[in-house]
């Protein structure tokens, strides 16, 4: 039997995976994917809890998150392409113009 606990543990694992990937990876594209993993981990939590509590609000919020994620991906990838065009790199260690 798959209980709510399994869902929540899975989403927590996914979230941590995303966070670790975000912090340790240097390639912006990979970091971007990690961001998606983070969002979907949250989505999983929302849907699991919505089902568990028998309320629809969580599912509605999940749709919103997907929509926002789509928009964010479109803009983010656009920026990424432009960054690559101008700097010939999407590694964060190469993009340190804001160093203090």
């Amino acid at each position, binding site marked *: 039997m798959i209980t709510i606990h399994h869902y929540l543990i899975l989403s927590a694992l996914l979230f941590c995976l995303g966070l670790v990937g*975000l*912090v*340790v*990876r240097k390639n912006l594209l990979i*970091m971007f994917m990690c961001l998606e993993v983070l969002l979907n981990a949250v989505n999983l939590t929302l849907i699991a809890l919505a089902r568990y509590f028998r309320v629809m609000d969580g599912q509605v919020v999940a749709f919103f998150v997907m929509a926002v994620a789509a928009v964010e991906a479109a803009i983010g990838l656009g920026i990424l392409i432009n960054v690559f065009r101008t700097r010939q790199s999407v590694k*964060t260690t190469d*993009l*340190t113009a804001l*160093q*203090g």
Partner: protein
Amino acid sequence: MSQLLPILIFPLLGALFNGFVAMRQSQGKGFVGKSLTSIVACLMPALAFLFSLKVFFSLLAHPEITQISAAGLMEWMRAGTLLVNFGFVVDHQSALMLLVITGVGSLIHLYSTGYMHEDEAYARYMAYLNLFLFFMLILVMGDSLPVMFIGWEGVGLCSYLLIGFWFTDADKAKAGKKAFVVNRVGDLAFLTAMFLIFVTLSKDATEASELLSFASLRTNAEALKPAAGLITLCLFLGATGKSAQIPLYVWLPDAMAGPTPVSALIHAATMVTAGIFMIAKLSFLFVMAPAVMHLIATIGLATALMAALIGLTQYDIKKVLAYSTVSQLGFMFLALGVGGFNAAMFHVMTHAFFKACLFLGAGSVIHGMHHEQDIRRMGGLWHRMPTTAVTFLLATLAISGFPLTAGFFSKDEILYLVYASDLSKLYYGLAVLTAGITAFYMMRLFAYAFLGASRAAHPEHIHESPRVMTVPLIILAGFSLVGGFMGVPHVLGHSLGIENWLAHWLASLGQVTPHEVAGPLQEGALMVISTVWALSCSAAAYFIYRNKLNAAANLKVRLAPLYRLITNKFYIDEIYDALIIKPVKRVSDLVLYRNIDVRLIDGLAVNGVGAVTRLLGNGFSLFQSGVVGHYLFYFLIGLCLFLGYMVMG
């Protein structure tokens, strides 16, 4: 109210107008010609004089009115029990001063149009002179000590500006600075006196009132009695600064660096008498402190004698007159010290006439001789500058105490009061001696400059001054002759049927009753003694310096050590330099500058703050790597801490 304000406003308008013109000219923009500047500069004091006359005559016509006041024009400051309003009041004493200031002032403005005509900064000069008149009028008209202090400081400022008028000459600029700094010492004492008065009076005060107005001082005189000694001592110290007495007289001889009409107006006739005016005005405080009165008399006499001795040896025509002024001011303080407040005011007035005349005469000589001030290169000016010579002679006779001239009456009254006071007879003896020395050095100056053969390089170039300069001379010489008749002493007045108008007029000042009232015979005898003594000194100087300059030179050689002491002004400047100026400079340099300023303020405070900030900034900037991942990492740590706090806390 409407009577008093015009007196103040006209000189201020003149100063503003001429100041504006001077500013335009300094920017290279012509605005108005010299003639308009002259007209404004002379008209404004003249108008002030007319209004002063009006005030004077309305006081004269209504003996029941003791003062005309314009009190409480505006609130100046209010704090706790302190309330100071702008207000003006003219009593009998102030009315006399108003006449002297605006009257002599107008004449000197007129004279200046001739004397300063060639000067580039003519408008600036006139602006300062008008401004001086404005502040001097505030000084004598202020109805409280703080308002008087505005004038007191203002005239100091104008004195500084005018002494250093030719400021491109470093020595002259320095002389101005010296006057300013020395005056600050006296001003500090004046301020302290005001604080003391306020502290003493505000003890019982419950609500804000004008504690520092003269009216309040008069009514609260009893309450001030316990502190009277200290208060009057401070006031007197303030007066020694402005009125050039020991120990603060040193600025006045140097003040001769200014244009000569300035010396006549500020450093002889008006500003330097402010200290005497103030003490006479506050006479009700001073009579409560006999020890301070004694000190005033002693300082006055010492100053009079010392300055007269120095005056004997000077060769600069203006320096002789400067020391003479210091000496005469000493006489006035001597009069104040023995309680002769109206005698002091009398001498202030007569001195204003003859000393202004002498200074203007000296200015005329300097003008006619193309900026020559050394009397050793003068001589024989009698024929070349007849008007100047005659007026100078009349003023010389007046200051020497020639019978029936102005100085005769005023000086004789002072000598008589000194004799009749309970001071020792030594004071009287020294005062008479000083009067003799005065007569001697004045006649020496006159004979040196105007008699004998000419010692100038080009005597044919010497010319008499224009009319605008000689007319004021003639008027002032006239007053030097007859100005004394307003205060004819009792012994003469009784037989001539003239009452002592001035003593009557200034009765409110009060006078300490002489300890030992001398009979008319004794008074007459004293008068004869001092007059004969002064005249014989005068005659001696006349015969020596008219054509026997060798005799004077012999005397100089025979008394060489004494002469050296006197001609070096008793080394007072050198002593001050060694005792005060050098130590102050050393302390300033070694302690204040090198340690406090450079190390503490610059090193620790200013650069220290900068260094700490930079160090912290450098440290924290290590976190700003510019790598997005690092920022995310910090963010994560922060988030963990925050969540941890939420869960645990």
